[in-house]
């Protein structure tokens, strides 16, 4: 499925829209990390919590659970939340 990558993570992907696979958000993030090593830890901490200023949207809805199921046709958008100056 298509994943929109926010600006701060594009040094990993080199492009804004990438392909990744996964039956859940967690699997999708793991696949992103296989394709773009290191990208997961910048978004998800060592306790498997989404980092404070990273947001995931699936089909336009914000998701907070990494076990959220995904379908191949879903669109995933990763967003940088406001984090101050």
């Amino acid at each position, binding site marked *: 499925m298509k994943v929109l990558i*926010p600006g*701060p*993570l594009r040094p990993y992907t080199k492009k804004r829209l990438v392909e990744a696979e996964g039956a859940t958000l967690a699997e999708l993030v793991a696949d992103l990390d296989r394709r773009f*090593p*290191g990208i997961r*830890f*910048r*978004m*998800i*901490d*060592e*306790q*498997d*919590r989404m*980092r404070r*200023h*990273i947001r995931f949207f699936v089909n336009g809805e914000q998701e907070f659970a990494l076990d959220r199921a995904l379908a191949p046709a879903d669109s995933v958008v990763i967003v*940088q*939340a406001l*984090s*101050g100056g």
Partner: protein
Amino acid sequence: MARAKRKPGGGARKGARTALLVATRKGAWIFRGDAARKVWKAEGPHFLGHIVNHLVLDPRDGRTLLAAAKTGHLGPTVFRSTDLGRTWKEAAKPPAFAKAPPGGSEGAKGRSVDHTFWLTPAHANEPGVWYAGTSPQGLFRSEDGGVTWAPFSAINDDPTYREWMGTVQDGTPDGPKLHSIIVDPRDPRHLYFGMSGGGVHETTDGGRTWTPLLKGLEVVEGFDKSTPTFHDPHCIRMCPGNPDRLYQQNHCGIYRIDRPSDAWVRVGAAMPKKVGDIGFPMVLHPSDPDAAWVFPMDGSTVWPRVSVGGVPCAYVTRDAGKSWRRLDAGLPRAQAWWTVKRQAMTADRGSPVGLYLGTTQGELWAGANEGARWACIARHLPEIYAVEAAEPG
């Protein structure tokens, strides 16, 4: 303890030129000095927009740089260069706490590293080994030059240490930190570190066991000084010229200890009363264990943490803290409300020694001739977090 023989201290390598490694809230810079240490050429920014807490050169190879970085949005990482900053690669496994078992109590919930705050190359006989201190307090070690990191010793998850680390409220405004990781040049198993809050700790068995080293240190009035949580060592340094002597700039004064004594002595008591002995950095002479510098700040009332009276100055001792002398030639005479953070003042190994400091207002200053005369090297940088003087190979 068994200690390898190794000559402590020593001056700069012949022909070596000083480079200043400047870590800021918005990236890192390298300032390369000429032979006279008068003209400085800026290289950078590296990692523009990243919060860089520490940039350190490996003195064992003179080429490997590690940078502790994060951004406002992204989690923490470590970048590594083996060509003095021309190219960088991210650590494959940055410092991270162990994952907590599921279903733990609130107190047993796993922690996550907010940022790596401090980097220390390990012993000269352990090439490629580094230590890292994090916020919240954690101690990590890499054995492959900073590519992969693992928790070091048991303290990160030890119940007693976790209690001593306290809560976020017991730490600095930017989060509680583990810092001042010090390796005895005579023995790689003999280490110290500091925690803000959490006190000073020592191991002589390579991190298997640690002992608090708190005797003689003050805490804020009303707190119990026997509890490590309430101790706040801002910066601890070991004398290169005598590894049995350490100095520290603490939240509650300037101290010296001469091992094997386990008691710190408040040498800041000899500072002028109007200036006080509060500050962040502690800088030591590369070979003279009686010489040290501090940069006082206002720790009165609500703790403004700026230059006392808006007049920045360093102070030097040449007699191990019995007396202190003001060094402010060339520094602003009024209305300069600086803070110099704990990693943002350092000394090179030249003769005479050069001092360097970075300010929260983004100015980089050099104190030539051991601080006798100060000159501004750079203005308009972002807030400076750390300055290291290095000798690239």
